[in-house]
């Protein structure tokens, strides 16, 4: 049953203490002491960067990008540890030193806001693919993620978590600022701005966009084969047995948000996204 908001306990202090503030943005503990090195991280023209706010469909996007850029078979992707192939810049493993030494072309992921990414990226020195997801589905996914992580040990209610999200009090800071900052750079020649929902709504167009952006030339038949492979990945993501059913589904939030929470969320959304012309599909 949807919990009564009056019954929401306060968030455990241990959860609170896991973050640190960097220039007004709440970041995970493993970013501490690394931010300057990240800003100066050497970027190569052949790099492809995948940047998302957490739980925006990063895993799915990385597989689709890998598929499009490498022309790999989805079955092969299933056999390899793709996370090793696509490291996250700020994570403790494998670490900045190892990422620096990876052979080109590197595929690198990050959840950091635009302004904290390596300054070379701001200068257009390599390709950046950003994917945004509608915030209602995202916050549900982020909550489930926090509940499942032993390191985060989040034991608050969804109401409380959602309130933290609306108040920009989660790891990687404000989702609202994160997406708007990238949206402002969507016209940069080295940036491709994508939406998670389009992967479900119009995968053909997205694969075409990715191929064009990555400079992958393919004829109609190759494009169809690629799209079919990507469809398989999307289906796998949404129906994986080990995961909550439909966790990648668009509109998942409707089963979790109470009407009251939704009204509050809409008010905050309107207030924080008011001047921005970025729009989302909240259901298909």
């Amino acid at each position, binding site marked *: *049953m*949807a919990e*009564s*908001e009056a019954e929401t306990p306060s968030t455990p202090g241990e959860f609170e203490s896991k973050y640190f503030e960097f220039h007004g943005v709440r970041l995970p503990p493993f970013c501490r002491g690394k931010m300057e090195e990240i800003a100066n991280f050497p970027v190569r023209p052949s790099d492809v960067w995948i940047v998302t706010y957490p739980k925006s469909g990063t895993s799915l996007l990385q597989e689709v990008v890998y598929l499009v850029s490498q022309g790999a078979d989805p079955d092969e992707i299933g056999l390899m540890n793709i996370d090793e192939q696509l490291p996250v810049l700020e994570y403790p493993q494998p670490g900045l030193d190892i990422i620096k030494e990876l052979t080109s072309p590197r595929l690198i992921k990050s959840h950091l806001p635009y302004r904290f990414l390596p300054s070379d990226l701001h200068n257009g020195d390599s390709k950046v693919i950003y994917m945004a997801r509608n915030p209602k589905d995202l916050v549900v996914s982020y909550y489930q993620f926090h509940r499942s992580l032993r390191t985060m040990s989040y034991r608050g209610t969804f109401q409380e978590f959602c309130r933290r999200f609306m108040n920009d009090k989660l790891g990687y800071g404000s989702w609202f600022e994160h997406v708007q900052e990238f949206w402002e750079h969507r016209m940069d020649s080295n940036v491709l701005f994508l939406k998670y929902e389009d992967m479900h709504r119009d995968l053909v167009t997205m694969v075409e966009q990715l191929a064009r952006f990555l400079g992958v030339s393919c004829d109609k038949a190759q494009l169809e084969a690629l799209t079919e492979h990507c469809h398989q990945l999307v289906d796998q993501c949404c129906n994986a047995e080990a995961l909550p059913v439909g966790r990648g589904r668009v509109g998942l*939030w*409707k*089963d*979790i*948000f*109470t*009407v*009251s929470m*939704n*009204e509050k969320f809409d008010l905050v959304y309107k207030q924080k996204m008011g001047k921005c012309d970025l729009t989302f599909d909240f259901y298909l």
Partner: protein
Amino acid sequence: MALHDMEDFTFDGTKRLSVNYVKGILQPTDTCDIWDKIWNFQAKPDDLLISTYPKAGTTWTQEIVELIQNEGDVEKSKRAPTHQRFPFLEMKIPSLGSGLEQAHAMPSPRILKTHLPFHLLPPSLLEKNCKIIYVARNPKDNMVSYYHFQRMNKALPAPGTWEEYFETFLAGKVCWGSWHEHVKGWWEAKDKHRILYLFYEDMKKNPKHEIQKLAEFIGKKLDDKVLDKIVHYTSFDVMKQNPMANYSSIPAEIMDHSISPFMRKGAVGDWKKHFTVAQNERFDEDYKKKMTDTRLTFHFQF
């Protein structure tokens, strides 16, 4: 549960009464067993009946009506708890007795209570042209309130999870049947009989106005001072603290107020904290279908 088992039934805080169907309407089995007696109940012309779907403001209305009849004399209403002052016609609960017996033993004028749908109302009440007050509440708040009531009231079936109960309620598989049929049945009857049809939401929004309406229907002329007194004593906060109105005298084995108090919120729009967006969409779709044949409308929020 077999009949002979029912006679020996004692609440122990875990057991619940069984239920069965009377003319397609779910009722506690004990009620089903005495249905003929209920149907043949003999009304008196000066009986006043308060009818509602469960958890639609019954206790509140009972308190208001009695205070109107007693012209604001609060002490008279403190003589006994609600369930002893107002015979609940179809009730028969082990250790609490029978509403019919209570009614027979009570001197006139009697204020009676029922949750029966109109088509199951004992015909004598209509034949004797009794005054009837019906209170309807918006179905979303009504559902939430009924859910919490079934959690705490062992005389009714366990509701299951909120998600399960949502489906049960929509299907009308709760005691006293479908909310939709209930409110529509009484609405259609209101112009053919002496029925005052009120709305819980109106009573919340403008209690003085609705109490005035009730007083006129009952045939009592009350001055402003008395009306204000009744408004005060029947406010949610006051009634919640009133042991003669808040059902705290019922044994905890039957009503466990620690699970959910009998008087929980009494608000309009509390459903928003319970219904998910998906449930609300599903409810609205279902509501539209089931209420398409009536002009009856409800306020779901202020």
